[in-house]
């Protein structure tokens, strides 16, 4: 099982969500974070003009069976991309096991993703 964590622009969230749905990923968890990266944005507070590298981002995180990982990554890249600095990153890692709390079942079956 693979864990996919995508750090995306909040403004692309709806598109990414739909693109994931199309490739069969219907379950995920997300939360808002602050990203520090290449992108900078001009900001003003009272009399101070400054550049901030702290940009609001959203993490979408999900675990899927190995065979879904590639399609999912492609779907995210496709839908999250604007082409400008700061589109974000996707990290893929391996998960040992997964358990569905409601049923206690473990392993791939616990991931209700239609094949």
């Amino acid at each position, binding site marked *: 099982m693979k864990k996919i964590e995508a750090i995306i622009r909040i403004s692309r969230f709806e598109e990414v969500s739909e693109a994931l749905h199309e490739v069969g990923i219907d379950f995920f968890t997300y939360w808002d974070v602050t990203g520090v990266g290449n992108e900078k944005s*001009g900001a*003003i507070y009272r009399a101070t003009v400054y550049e901030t590298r702290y940009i609001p981002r959203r993490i979408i995180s999900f675990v899927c069976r190995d065979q879904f990982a590639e399609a999912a990554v492609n779907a995210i890249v496709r839908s999250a991309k604007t082409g400008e600095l700061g589109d974000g990153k996707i990290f893929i890692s391996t998960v040992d096991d997964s358990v569905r709390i409601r049923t206690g079942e473990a392993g791939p079956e616990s991931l209700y993703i239609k094949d």
Partner: protein
Amino acid sequence: METMDFTMSINTFWVLIAAVLVFFMQAGFALVEAGFTRAKNTTNILFKNLMDFCIASLGFWALGYGIMFGAGSGFLGEIEFFSNVDHGEALGLPNYAFLFFQLVFAATAATIVSGAMAERTKFSAYLIYSAVITLVIYPISGHWVWGGGWLASIGFHDFAGSTVVHSVGGWLALVGAAILGPRIGKYKNGKTNAIPGQSLVLGTLGVFILWLGWFGFNPGSTVSFADPGLVAHIFMTTNMAAAAGAVATVITTWIRYKKPNLSMTLNGVLAGLVAITAGCDVVSPGGAVIIGAMAGVLVVFSVEFFDKIVKIDDPVGAISVHGVCGAFGTIMVGAFAVDGGLFYGGGFSYIGTQLTGVAAVGAWAIGTGLILFYGLKYILGIRVSRKEEENGLDFYEHGEKAYN
């Protein structure tokens, strides 16, 4: 101690206190609109609410007052720079007391629109709109009714401005929101999506402040305390209409959506208040309850109508609350006025007069609104870019987030 002209002191005191309450409605509008929109546009909506009041203050003082109250013709007052002609004297008020009271009313009309056009309108275009409404649109139709113009002559009754203030604001909101188009994501594949506002705390506090302000808005429109019974009467009708509006909306939403719904009930309170504004002096508290309750039902269906059928995206419900309920309440004066209303044996003519006024002012607001907003659209642009809208207006237009 100098000797006092008690009559003038009391009246002036009253008018100024009422004006202060109306002034505070600006904070109410700011909170309601901030609460009903998303956090990424909060700096922008607050800023618009602040600046429209400031621009309205300057504009109404510089020119609007004269256009509204100057002798002029039945259609138009006069160009009087910096409010230098005294229109308070006739009412036994210092000019500046009457001016200040009228100024906060003008600002109220101005600020209504920002909610309907929230989350996608250019800041600069909005500032220009604010100037135009207080310099031209509002004072002219205001002149018809309150400045001794032609609607006043035919007996049109709009005591505190259901039509003069609220529906003017509401129709401009309608035109503005229609020309702007809906927010991204509001309508997708023919489906109407909910875009929940950020905070019902802000919304509720805003509505309480607006309700408070209405106790200046309606009874203050007596511009005199010579008749204490009348002022007290207006307090009661105003309050009862608001309460009845809320209760009616709760029941309507409970039946229609299976659950009592707060966000709509907040609109219901305002619907009741807007609707009673025209007739608060001439209907009974019982009549006020009925008018308020009807407005509380009407606003639900009106919001649905604009949201789902006409598909004009109005994030705060300004069109329904101020436009539709303002018109509705004005017409109901013809039915519920204790003296001459249809239900009190007065026949249909009163309603006819009310309909004339509503239609004339509506046509004026919509007509000038079309010119104004289309003009702005083609000359300057009124809508921010897709990117700005998606990332929030705070980010690109101001470089300043509302929350840190």
